[in-house]
């Protein structure tokens, strides 16, 4: 479904990511592991069209998408839920979600149905539907960001550190929801530092270090990999 081949993003002489090869199959839940600044978000931005790759190719369902503008990427079926959420803070929860369905704006019924599905997935968002997004707690904002991302019914959703800064109980809920989204048919590419929780729900994973992929494998392989265990699981 998604193929990154030899992708690099460079700022002058500095390479944020270098020679990245990633394959994501339809229906998979793939995780990118790595510390802050390892290059996970840059990879996501390159896929989403927010950053132009300096080298390499990105293909989605067989068509090249590198260098394509972000709105066309969303139309193609890839939506990113960014690490800093990028919500519309003065808009209400409901307005934020409706904007998430922007690509289907001419199919009002479909947008409304997606809205109901998101409210079912995150009942708290229904309770807070008329509150400004900026007034929500961190966990609720993260739910809103994920809800907004799936409003357009994407084929592939990129979730950038959805557990960052959240209370352990909320983190658990978040991973359950991510698993549910995947099981409902959406392919998920997840960037995480919480390696254990992420690998427990993932099919496969890639480990980043200083902008390059150093280890890759199935979730089970990575869970038993010494480097991964030492660096990210603390065992």
């Amino acid at each position, binding site marked *: 479904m998604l193929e990154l081949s030899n992708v690099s993003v460079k700022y002058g002489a500095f390479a944020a990511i270098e020679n990245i090869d990633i394959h994501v199959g339809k229906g998979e839940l793939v995780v990118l592991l790595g510390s802050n600044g390892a290059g996970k978000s840059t990879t996501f931005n390159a896929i989403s069209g*927010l950053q132009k790759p300096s080298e390499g190719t990105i293909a989605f369902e067989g068509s090249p998408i590198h260098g394509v503008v972000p*709105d066309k990427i969303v139309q193609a079926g890839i939506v990113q839920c960014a690490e800093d*959420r990028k919500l519309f*803070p*003065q808009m209400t929860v409901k307005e934020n979600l*409706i904007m998430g369905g*922007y*690509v289907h*704006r001419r199919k009002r019924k479909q947008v409304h149905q997606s809205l109901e599905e998101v409210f079912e997935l995150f009942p708290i968002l229904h309770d807070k539907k008329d509150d400004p997004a900026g007034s929500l707690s961190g966990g609720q904002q993260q739910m809103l960001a994920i809800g907004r991302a799936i409003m357009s019914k994407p084929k592939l959703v990129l979730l950038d550190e959805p557990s960052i800064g959240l209370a352990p109980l909320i983190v658990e809920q978040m991973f359950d929801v991510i698993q549910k989204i995947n099981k409902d048919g959406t392919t998920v590419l997840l960037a995480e530092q919480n390696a254990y929780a992420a690998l427990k729900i993932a099919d496969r994973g890639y480990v980043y270090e200083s902008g390059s992929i150093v280890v890759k494998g199935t979730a089970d392989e990575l869970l038993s990999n010494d480097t991964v265990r030492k660096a990210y699981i603390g065992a």
Partner: protein
Amino acid sequence: MDILTQQLFNGLTIGSVYSLVALGLTLVYGILHIPNFAHGALYMLGAYVTLTMMLLWGIHYWIAMAVSVLVVGLLGVLMDRLVFHPLRHAPPIHDKIAAIGMLLFLEAFAQLIWGADYRTMETPYGQVIDIFGMTATTQRVLINIGAIAVMILLYLFLKKTYTGSTIIAMAQNREGAQLVGINTNRVAMLTFMISGGLAAIAASLSAPINLVFPGMGHLVILKAFVIIILGGMGSVPGAILGGYILGFTESLGATYISNDYKDIIAFLLLVVILSIKPKGLFSREGF
């Protein structure tokens, strides 16, 4: 009491025009963070296009105004595509220099085409009427009704339509807007179109009670900047409220303090309000 009511009505009229101009300015600032100094030139061109349509082809005032909205709106779009869009990744000072450059260019252009003379715009609404004991021309009443109607339509467009909401979304988070599939270049063009259109409406409504000349946008744009600064940069309610505050203060100040100092009042008001609320009346980001 009669004088007070009369001056309040005059303040409402001036405030309506200021609000329309400030709205266009604040919309562009809200989404692109560009202080478009050339907005005053769009205002001036709005008046000239309406006047030319009426004088050259004898077109009715309202149709001439509609043509002007279209022409100046498209000019706004051109401004974005030819000047501001290529500068999107340039340092912010480049936008400001370009805006001043366009202001000077458009003024010189107007002078070349229409000359430097002061012109009057005659409309079919010059008759004097009595409303609740006040005396006013129909044109002044039209300015108020027209401006308020435009503001309501703009509000409904921004709040109730998907297309309008894209402007609000982009003002609040540009990358967030891109990530939900909004074409931000198209939104920028749309915003410049609306901004130009609002300037043309404001100028066409107010020209019959003022004069039309190449420098007519100077003071208006300076005051529009005062309004959006005191209302909160990028805030739509701030631009409306700020416009009316300034309109009323000027009108009452001219009557009860001195007509000679009425233009200074705007800047005094700015100093006072910013001393109390340094970020403006509606300081939150976005609309």
